[in-house]
């Protein structure tokens, strides 16, 4: 094996006033040709900075203070911009996280790949190579795809184009910065398989940055775990995944949703919410030209029993969020019945809805958008009960109790949302919903925007609160492991319809519908069961 890349005690300084002095500190790693090194860590751990340093793409405000980066036997930190450019693309290439914005929207896909060839003096080969490259990333009909503009391609297809572009000059080193994070699970699986296959065929070295241990299990030969800018543990994938040594790695792996259902009490059938024949369609166009009609929700009947948690799972655009929003009337469906304790909520007026607002509450996905930035946390939690006639003093005591319940300090009452981290904000959002003392809680991807260790905390908290308060819950998620862990029953949605509905063990153990099977096959690292680790705290 040839040593491709060596990073030796690299230190990159952060500008003054940041939360720590160095983005990356004393970082050493190496990568051989023909292997995939996964760099894992939570947001802010410095993994992207490491990749950008190797590519010479550091922002001007960040300076390398110490250390060396050796690529193919020569040090590249001191190289001129000119010399770096001739290596970038030709010898080392990068795939970015966000396929939707990484392509030039005004240029045909084929031209963008040809451009990569041209800048390195191989423009003459472009005509023959472009279709070849597009075929190599398993895109159907390469000739016509090459003539398309990026907006006509899906996220997964764009990411394939990005990979084709990165591979155009057959680089020795490919750096992939969370290339599948923005994609749906089934697409993610296809891209992971594709990268593995190409890497084996060409014998490239791949530095793969991710936060997801499932992805690591799927693709990595070796793993480097980063925390606060340092590598805390490094080694072969099987060692790290199955016998982690460092406490932080152990904590991360313990936080990975294990996908195993917890012991759950039996649910007696006493329906709280029944959805019958609910339909929501969106129309575009009109006036001139034909109307485009999209059925966002149809054939999505379900019954939710008291004390039960029903998981709605599906990929983006499957209508799971729309369906949940129909229940709280953020979306008004055209047809169907939404029976809450036998009373149809759909035809009710805004006024008529008011008594039900107390009983049905919602937790939102994005902890950064779901709290009013100009309102103190205490006011955010108390305003709901006050609107419904609870005295301010009582609402305040209740809010203090709730802050304790979601494990926040009472001093949080007087602070603004921006002073809190994502996980803390999500707990504030939960407290706001619980302040209304609801029977039914709708959780719309409540942990998707959080790091894995925080995600585990919030999930535990949800489970605990649900038990303690006897909540009925509708839990929306795209992450099947999370769903398996928290839900009693699971409804799988595809293109606006529920295609399979059943107890969690049954859906996971003996899936009936082909789409459910495809989803389950796409869980990254499905062959890896996180080891049961003794508490290290």
């Amino acid at each position, binding site marked *: 094996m040839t040593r491709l890349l060596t990073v030796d005690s690299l230190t990159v300084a952060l500008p003054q006033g940041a939360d720590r002095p160095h983005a990356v500190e004393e970082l050493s790693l190496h990568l051989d040709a023909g292997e995939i090194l996964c760099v894992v860590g939570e947001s802010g751990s410095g993994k992207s900075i490491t990749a950008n340093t190797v590519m010479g793409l550091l922002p001007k405000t960040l300076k390398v203070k110490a250390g060396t980066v050796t690529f193919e036997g020569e040090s590249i930190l001191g190289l001129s911009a000119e010399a770096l450019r001739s290596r970038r693309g030709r010898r080392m290439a990068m795939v970015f996280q966000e396929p939707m914005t990484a392509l030039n929207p005004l240029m045909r896909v084929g031209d963008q790949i040809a451009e990569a060839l041209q800048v390195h003096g191989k423009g003459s080969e472009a005509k023959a190579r472009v279709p070849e490259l597009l075929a190599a990333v398993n895109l159907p009909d390469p000739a016509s795809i090459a003539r398309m503009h990026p907006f006509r391609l899906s996220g997964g297809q764009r990411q394939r184009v990005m990979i084709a572009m990165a591979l155009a000059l057959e680089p020795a080193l490919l750096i992939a910065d969370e290339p599948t994070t923005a994609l749906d699970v089934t697409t993610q699986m296809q891209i992971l398989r594709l990268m593995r296959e190409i890497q084996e065929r060409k014998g490239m070295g791949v530095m793969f940055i991710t936060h997801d241990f499932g992805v690591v299990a799927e693709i990595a030969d070796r793993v480097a775990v980063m925390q606060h800018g340092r590598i805390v543990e490094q080694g072969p994938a099987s060692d790290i995944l199955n016998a982690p040594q460092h406490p932080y790695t152990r904590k991360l792996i313990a936080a990975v949703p294990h996908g195993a259902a917890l012991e759950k009490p039996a649910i007696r059938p006493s329906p709280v919410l029944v959805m019958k024949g609910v339909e929501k369609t969106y129309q575009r166009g009109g006036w001139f030209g034909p109307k485009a009609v999209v059925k966002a929700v149809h054939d999505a009947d379900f019954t939710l029993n008291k004390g039960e948690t029903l998981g709605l799972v599906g990929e983006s655009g499957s209508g799971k969020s729309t369906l949940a929003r129909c229940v709280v009337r953020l979306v008004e469906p055209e047809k169907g019945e939404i029976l809450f304790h036998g009373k149809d909520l759909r035809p009710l007026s805004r006024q008529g*809805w008011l008594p039900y607002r*107390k009983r049905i509450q919602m937790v939102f996905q994005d902890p950064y958008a*779901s*709290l*009013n930035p100009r*309102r103190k946390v205490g006011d955010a939690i108390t305003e709901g009960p006050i609107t419904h006639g609870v005295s301010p003093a009582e609402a305040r005591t209740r809010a203090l109790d709730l802050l304790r319940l979601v494990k926040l300090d009472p001093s949080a009452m007087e602070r603004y949302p921006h002073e809190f981290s994502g996980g803390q904000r999500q707990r504030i959002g939960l407290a706001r919903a619980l302040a209304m003392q609801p029977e039914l809680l709708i959780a719309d991807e409540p942990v998707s925007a959080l790091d894995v260790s925080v995600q585990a905390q919030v999930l535990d908290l949800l489970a605990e609160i649900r038990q303690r308060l006897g909540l009925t819950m509708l839990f929306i998620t795209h992450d099947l492991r999370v769903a398996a862990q928290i839900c009693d029953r699971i409804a799988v949605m595809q293109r606006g319809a529920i295609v399979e509905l059943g107890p969690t063990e049954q859906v996971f153990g003996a899936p009936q519908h082909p789409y459910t099977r495809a989803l389950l096959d796409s869980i990254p690292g499905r062959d890896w069961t996180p080891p049961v680790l003794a508490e290290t705290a």
Partner: protein
Amino acid sequence: MKDFWRNFSRNRGAVVGLVVLVAVLILAVLAPVLYPGSPWDMAGMPFAPPGEEGMLLGTDSLGRDVAAGIAHGARVSLLVGAVSTVAALAIGVSLGAIAGYLGGLVDDLVMRFTEFFQTIPSFVLAILLVAIFTPSIASIVFAIAVVSWPPVARVVRAEFLSLRSREFVQASEVLGKSRLSIVVGDILPNALSPIVVLSSLMVASAILLESALSFLGLGDPNMMSWGFLIGSGRSVIRMAWWMSVFPGIAIFLTVLSLNLVGEGLSDALNPRLARNRGGKP
């Protein structure tokens, strides 16, 4: 608040603008003390050049003190600028909020109504309104407000449209808050910064409009104003340049400083944008 001032003072032009603006304000407040008596009264020889006969900025064709006219005119200009902006904001913010929050058919109706006003040349409409209602300070303020609310309505509508679909607004909706308290309590405070920036620019254009109306002789006949001073000096500009130039400079400085302050406000309220614009470190 501290951050606000730091970001504001980072833009040097804005600080200069603020200083000029405060100076004009002080001049307006102190006008009766500095120049007691009516600015319409004769104070000296007609056509006295600046500096002569004890007249700092000279006198006009009837011997009235130009400096006194500018000081008293500042009151009218600032008053008209401020009041008509408040009135235009009241119309624009409420219509924009209704259109943006309710959306659908209401939005269409309100926006077509807004476009109706935008397609009429605003100055012509203002002249027409003042002529119909006879020139007075009230009719001028009314006319300026009527022609200057449409941009406010559009800005507020756009802000509301994007804020309405934010999760914190949806959360308030789910909590069962009334529409009014969502609009006033949740959306409006978050839409405030573009409104504040826009209103400083609107004061500037209101002052220009008022001057233009007075220049044409449509000003309040009982109130001295900068536009009237320029208008009355227009016919004798070759022999008495000071009659038009000094009021002109007053308008220029006030409007420029309002624009600078507006830009500073925009930088201070959207510090991220300001930094991306580069320039000042």
